[in-house]
């Protein structure tokens, strides 16, 4: 579903991604973990067609980036630590706006389904500025899935959420993934990440330094796996 070959991204003289190789099969839930500044957000922005690769080949759902970016965006849902919502519009108005941007048919029914899924039906006519951070993040997920995308990208979705809101977000993420979608998520919350993902890739110094599935390091050992990969990278 996602294929990345020899990806390089430069900002001026600084090279953030240095020949990165990355593949995700359909239905996989891949967690991309790494220290701050490793290039996780930059990489997700390239996958989302929000940034252009300096070199390399990137394809999502069989479409090449940046050449076929509109086709890629049709199949992509993105949730970041910012909600991408308009605070002076209601929950319904925000979803209606994004639904129109995706030219969706039967929009009212789809909005009802999405609000039901993220548990905001009773607050549908309230302004987003009155929502808590957790509710805004749930609505942000609703916004991202309104067009029923095949691929979901989550960039630090737990940032700024308390324990209750994080637990609620877990449930919504599981629902999103359970529908057979391909998911790539970056997060610093390793305990939650271990619980949700099926594969774990460590991004360090602009390349994928290691890739493992749960069985490779055993339950509850993601942190030690992560630390060992980072320590090995530091030695080199």
């Amino acid at each position, binding site marked *: 579903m996602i294929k990345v070959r020899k990806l390089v991204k430069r900002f001026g003289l600084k090279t953030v991604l240095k020949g990165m190789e990355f593949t995700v099969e359909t239905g996989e839930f891949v967690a991309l973990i790494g220290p701050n500044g490793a290039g996780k957000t930059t990489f997700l*922005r390239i996958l*989302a*067609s*929000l*940034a*252009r690769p300096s070199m390399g080949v990137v394809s999502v759902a069989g479409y090449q980036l*940046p050449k076929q970016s*509109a*086709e890629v*965006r*049709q199949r*992509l849902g*993105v949730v*970041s630590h*910012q*909600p*991408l*919502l*308009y*605070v*002076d*519009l209601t929950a319904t*108005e925000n979803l209606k*706006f*994004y639904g*129109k*941007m*995706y*030219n969706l048919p039967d929009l009212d029914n789809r909005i009802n389904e999405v609000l039901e899924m993220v548990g905001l039906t009773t607050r549908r006519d309230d*302004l987003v500025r009155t929502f808590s951070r957790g509710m805004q993040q749930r609505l942000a997920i609703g*916004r991202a899935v309104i067009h029923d995308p095949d691929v979901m990208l989550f960039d630090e979705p737990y940032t700024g959420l308390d324990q209750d809101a994080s637990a609620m977000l877990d449930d919504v993420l599981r629902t999103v993934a359970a529908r057979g979608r391909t998911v790539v998520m970056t997060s610093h919350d390793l305990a939650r990440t271990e619980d949700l993902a099926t594969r774990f890739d460590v991004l360090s110094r602009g390349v994928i330094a290691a890739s493992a599935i749960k069985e490779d390091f055993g339950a509850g050992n993601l942190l030690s796996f992560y630390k060992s990969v980072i320590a090995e990278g530091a030695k080199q």
Partner: protein
Amino acid sequence: MSQRREERRSSYTKAIGAIAWKDLAAELRSKELLSAMLVFSLLVIFIFNFSLELDVKTRNSVTSGVLWATFAFAGTLGLNRSMSIEKDRGCLDGLLLAPVDRSAIYFGKAISNLAFMLIVEAIVLPIYSILYNTNLFKPGLLLVILLGSLGYTAVGTLLSAMSVQTRTRDVMLPILLFPIILPVLIAAVRASGGYLQNLPFDQILPWLNLLIVYDVIFTAIAFMVFDYVVEE
């Protein structure tokens, strides 16, 4: 093939309409942008009145300059605010993620910016007319205001999308905008002055032509380069 083209055209126009509707609906609720532009416009007019002593004799010759200076300064406030709303909560990314040609975002934002500017002008003009006992409701003058505002928002929307990505965006927009917008302001001031002083139409026509050509050229340039301006 033609059905696909028709679908694309329909989603493109829907996206433009959705962005303009969203901006107007949010602004009608918050009134942040319009109130700031309006209060600023009225203050500028009062300041000009005291500093230039707008008596009956000088009024006709300076009215067009005062009006366009007011619209230009108030316009930068509106353009800055309109794009800051998109940038501050990451909403610009939300727009860029939509599967439409990104020029639709430009046209949607330009339409709402133009609507805000015209609303402010529609309120300022009668107030100016009453305060200074000058008739500003001449069809020719209203056409000039429409064409001038069109050119101003065509360039301003593109440049505000550029300046909003910088740290000094509030300062950056007027520095970028005013040199480029100068031909529009000169043409608009001259054409407005012509109508206010009842000059013959053939003396006003060259300025009207300049306004129209500028509007068309800059709308076309913005259509071509907007994608590159907003992508990293």
